[in-house]
């Protein structure tokens, strides 16, 4: 009995020695910030005061029209970019998966290139292309419509532009995931369907799309989360403007924390976003736990 206990203790010590380092980093830089963020969001701390205000920061937040705007803008981007990423990614993958490997690899690589060279560079190039003074896009649009066009300076178009640039900069991941997922489907099943005279359209809608559903779920969750934290493209393309037209929750958080020096407002936004991320991630969490 004691021998058994001793063995058990040794096993536990070894186990924790292995997970220990990761657990330590995780505790300091992931767990602690959650609680610290929660604590900060319940205080009003400025240079002169540091008082417990309970939920007041949250109440103020939801009464701030700029924050409401930021939430609606974030929702808009979530819907447009997620749909764009998934539909475009699936369509392209379905179009190319049964073609020659060289072609598949060419298409996959060109779409993945913008993902790999960093959003900073992509945002810069698009900023130049969309520049009202000498940008190609605005120049040719202006020529075609006969009016001066400034897509980033127009409150009605700026979010669409941001959605478009984000899709271009991220759809490559969806394509890689979908192609891999389609390649995982047994070729016999696809061959059999072909022999039965099923058209490619039927094969795609009846066999492939239902079978790649786990990928669709994974991509939906990761895309939504990546839009929640979208930052570079907003900062470099529009800086949240014009007149808050492209303000998002993440950018509102950043502005309050590092521009207006209202860490307590930023912390409250962080907790709201944390709650959203948890809710969004639940389906994915469940499916991952089932696997492993």
């Amino acid at each position, binding site marked *: 009995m004691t021998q058994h206990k001793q063995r058990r203790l040794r096993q536990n010590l*070894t186990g924790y020695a292995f997970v220990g*380092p990761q657990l330590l980093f995780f505790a300091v830089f992931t767990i602690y*910030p959650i609680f610290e963020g929660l604590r900060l969001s319940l205080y009003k701390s400025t240079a002169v005061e540091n008082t417990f205000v309970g939920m007041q920061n949250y109440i103020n937040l939801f009464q701030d029209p700029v924050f409401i705007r930021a939430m609606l803008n974030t929702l808009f981007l979530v819907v447009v970019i997620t749909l764009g990423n998934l539909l475009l990614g699936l369509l*392209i993958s379905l179009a190319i998966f049964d073609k020659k490997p060289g072609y598949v690899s060419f298409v996959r690589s060109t779409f993945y290139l913008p993902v790999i060279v960093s959003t900073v560079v992509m945002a810069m190039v698009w900023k130049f292309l969309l520049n009202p003074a000498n940008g190609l896009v605005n120049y040719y649009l202006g020529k075609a419509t006969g009016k001066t066009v400034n897509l980033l300076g127009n409150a009605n178009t700026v979010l669409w532009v941001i959605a478009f640039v984000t899709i271009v900069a991220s759809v490559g991941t969806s394509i890689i995931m979908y192609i891999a997922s389609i390649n995982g489907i047994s070729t016999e099943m696809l061959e059999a369907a072909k022999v039965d005279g099923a058209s490619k359209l039927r094969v795609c809608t009846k066999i492939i799309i239902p079978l790649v559903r786990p990928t669709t779920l994974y991509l939906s969750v990761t895309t939504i989360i990546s839009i929640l934290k979208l930052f570079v493209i907003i900062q470099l393309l529009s800086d949240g403007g014009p007149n808050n037209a492209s303000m998002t929750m993440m950018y509102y958080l950043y502005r309050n924390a590092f521009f207006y020096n209202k860490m307590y407002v930023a912390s409250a936004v962080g907790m709201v976003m944390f709650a959203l991320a948890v809710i969004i991630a639940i389906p994915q969490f469940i499916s991952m736990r089932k696997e492993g």
Partner: protein
Amino acid sequence: MKKSNLGNRLKRADKLDLVVNILVFLMAVVNLFPFYYLLTNSVKNSAAIFKMPPDWWPKTFQYKNYVDLFKGQPAFRWALNSFVVALITTLLVVLCASLAAYGCSKLHFTGRGVVYAIFIGALMIPKEIFIVPLFRIITKFNLVDTYAGMILPNVASTFGVFLLKGFFDTVPDSIRESGKLDGAGEFTVFRKLVMPIVKPGIGALFILNFVNIWNDYLWQMLVARSKNMMTLMVGTASIMQEISPNYGYKMAGAAVASVPMLIIFICFQRYFTSGITMGAVKE
């Protein structure tokens, strides 16, 4: 499909497939345009950049923009900073994640299920939403404007644990037991016997993580206070935000920031594809 009656056999669905593929191919080519535009404009002079409609092929090649960039800005230093931060973060991530993944996959200890569940649960929570408390920690430890400040918070990412556990799970227990019979301790078994088997996983994690950190922006921007501590992405973005119409110079900055990743991508393409798909979905 026989070639002789190809024309007759092109049913409506096949025609649709053809049309869609032509569109996809065109989009694929258009994807390359921003890079073409970036590189060609980085060698144009200011007059040529402002010319509308543009010269699709630069009439004059001048490398002045690149010379100005490296003379006027500590661009080499930025590249070095990016390299150091990405490399050390990645080494630490690989070390911590492989130990933890091995523990969660092969060792039996109380609370293993809970520990792994917490790691997985945190996968989807972006660290960006905690920049306020994270920045306070870094400030408290006096790590603002240091490499350590940029590196340490990123080691907390548990993606590596998740990715590598899948690899460790495929290693048969008999290998561990044979090592144990030879009298080797758990760490020796891990290092000598199991790690070599999961090398492909380590490779994928290494590359993915290196690229992620290289391309990371927000956190590095917050931590870097002095010009000399900026990473390439932060430095390039700061040039971009300067109020100056010197576009060729800005383009040169963007080109320098993108070239290292282009080279890595071309060399290690296989690892990217496997790494990205690996962690995510099993059929």
